[in-house]
């Protein structure tokens, strides 16, 4: 059988033909008139190398959807950073609640959508804000609302995907979560650890050190290292940038290396234009100097933006392939039962766990029996066993 293989990094495919036919075909081809679909310059060019362009054109027409969630205590500059990142004002009528209101408030979810267009490419960006997180004296329940929101989006997508009309599924799943860490602490707080552990299997976490202009360079390095150590200590799974492919150019590889080395990013946000060194820059004006937002020596804002933009596709992919699939398999295993109340009777839980254990054991026994049979039967096709349980 003929197999068409595209070589490593090659832009056109090479046709592998069995040697017996080679001379015949090449003779035939050189004698033939070039057919209208063959590129006369490169013989054997089929043309599906054009596929990425087609995908590109279709995507551009369709537009991209991206949902970003921001979580962090009040006053860490989340809204300012989001506005700086996307150069828009996502919170035009924002009113900061007073102290009395803060006492009674619980965590809320506020989603704002904005359509950004750049050079014909449309991005439908949804930013999910979580005001009230970390405000209360007792923050034990403050991430329940957030987790149920994330699960709800997954649930909705699952429902749409299993539905009849799948043409216009709106993807509102949270693709990325920026978690804002306070620069004033000595690392992660207990609340940070608890929250990240609760959502690291549901969403891509990108830790960000907020208000980085309050730290000197040494303090920043120390804090970053401390946070990374604590993340490892508590087995928190944050989003890891994929390594650059070996065939990418050096610049891209270097950029990826730099990005990976700077996690967690320490950022400063601002939308005010300040006059500095003769030109207008976005920054913060202090009596002792100007902090420039887009200066890589001052903070990692540019790195964060680069990471987000070059990895938007990857973030969506990981959400789809990892987090969503995890959710889906959990959900389907539960068999359509609604999420149980945590205060369920302990005995009931035990009974259910036992039943599940028995089911698993039966399944394993069946699989083993199957394997035995197949090994005896000499059939090497392991297809039946390869499917995801």
């Amino acid at each position, binding site marked *: 059988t003929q197999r068409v293989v595209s070589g490593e990094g090659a832009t056109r495919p090479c046709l592998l033909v069995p040697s017996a036919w080679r001379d015949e075909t090449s003779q035939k081809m050189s004698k033939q008139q070039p057919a209208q679909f063959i590129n006369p310059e490169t013989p054997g060019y089929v043309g599906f190398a054009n596929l990425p362009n087609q995908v590109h054109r279709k995507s551009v027409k369709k537009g991209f959807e991206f949902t970003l969630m921001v979580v962090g205590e009040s006053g860490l500059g989340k809204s300012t950073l989001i506005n700086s990142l996307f150069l828009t004002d996502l919170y035009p009528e924002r009113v900061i609640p007073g*102290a*009395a209101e803060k006492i009674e408030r619980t965590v809320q979810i506020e989603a704002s959508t904005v359509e950004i267009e750049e050079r014909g490419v449309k991005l439908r960006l949804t930013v999910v804000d979580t005001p009230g997180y970390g405000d209360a004296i007792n923050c034990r329940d403050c991430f329940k609302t957030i987790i149920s929101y994330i699960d709800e989006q997954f649930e909705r997508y699952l429902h749409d995907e299993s539905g009849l009309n799948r043409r216009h599924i709106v993807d509102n799943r949270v693709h990325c979560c920026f978690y804002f860490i306070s620069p*004033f602490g*000595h690392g992660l707080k*207990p609340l940070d650890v608890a929250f990240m552990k609760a959502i690291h299997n549901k969403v891509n976490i990108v830790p960000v050190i907020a208000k980085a202009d*309050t730290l*000197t360079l040494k303090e920043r390095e*120390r804090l970053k290292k401390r946070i990374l150590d604590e993340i490892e200590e508590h087995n928190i799974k944050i989003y890891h940038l994929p390594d650059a492919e070996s065939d990418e150019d050096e610049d891209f590889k270097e950029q990826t290396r730099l990005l990976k080395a700077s996690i967690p990013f320490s950022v400063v946000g601002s939308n005010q234009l300040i006059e500095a060194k003769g030109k207008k820059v976005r920054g913060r004006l*202090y009596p002792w100097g100007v902090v420039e937002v887009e200066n890589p020596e001052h903070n990692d804002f540019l790195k964060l933006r680069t990471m987000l933009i070059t990895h938007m596709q990857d973030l969506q992919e990981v959400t789809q392939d990892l987090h969503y699939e995890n959710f889906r398999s959990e959900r389907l295993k539960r068999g359509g039962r609604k999420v149980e109340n945590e205060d369920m009777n302990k005995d009931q839980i035990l009974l259910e766990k036992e039943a599940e254990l028995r089911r698993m054991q039966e399944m394993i026994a069946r699989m083993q029996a199957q394997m035995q049979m197949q090994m005896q039967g000499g059939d090497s096709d392991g297809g039946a066993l390869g499917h995801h349980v």
Partner: protein
Amino acid sequence: MEPLRHSPSPCSSSRPSSPSTPPCEMPGPVGVEAVLEQLKIKAMKMGFEFNIMVVGQSGLGKSTMLNTLFKSKVWKSNLPGLKVPIPQTLQLHSVTHVIEEKGVKLKLTVIDTPGFGDQINNDKCWDPILGYINEQYERYLQEEILITRQRHIPDTRVHCCVYFVPPTGHCLRPLDIEFLQRLCQTVNVVPVIARADSLTMEERETFRRRIQQNLRTHCIEVYPQKCLDEDINDKILNSKLRERIPFAVVGADQQHLVNGRCVLGRKTKWGVIEVENMAHCEFPLLRDLLIRSHLQDLKDITHNVHYENYRIIRLNESHLLPRGPGWVNLAPASPGQLTSHQPFKICREAHKDSEKEF
């Protein structure tokens, strides 16, 4: 004290002797001013005591601030990022130093409160602090009611509590309000905006106004308390201070070279933040308040107002008022009794008219 002697004419020979009054000075017809000198000498001999407590979440620069205030390493400050385990419950650490300046000795006790506000559930995290403060009052009270008591009762009462508010730029958090409400009844509280180098000047002013508004709304009286102003001079001086409270402070214990001068500050890529420069932060105001101008006032208010309030409650509880030189057997206070929120009006004259209180 020596009896006053009326002298017909102010001449040094018949004046009551005062060893340190320079002979060429004429203190007036009576010479009462000489008392000031005597007091000063006595005070210098005895030395001063000052107990200061710092409260705030970890990483807000409390230890660094203390070092900057007293220009010595009174507390080993924790570098950000260094492994410091957050204690599970609030603990109180106290350290005593004796520092000296121009012959004046100051016995400084610093009480730190690591673990405040760091947990997920911070409910009642102020109880250990209130317990400690009341314990010191109790200790003083027990000493005071002894039949033979010491000449100089060791004063471990907290004279001032500096509360560090994180620079969110928005307003006071529920935790801040709960804490301040409870503590302002028991001790002098000076709130400060910590790590103020993360706020621009406009943001600082907005934050300050909002905090002042929050304090008014919740009837929190921080030091200097309005109701304790004695005369018009006090009022003017303290009003100026009250306009600026909470001070936006930055702490630093490292020196850097700026324009040829050696300054205490923080060096960043975009400039050096000078701690003692009023244009950069309000640390000098805090230092002046705590040390240069109001230290004695803090102690006086603690003794005359807060301690007396405590004493009245305790004596009323044990249903016995001290009469004469008898030993008053007070039942030891249980920790829960005095940490409950007791609203009552702080009044300077408390120790004279106890009926006015209730």
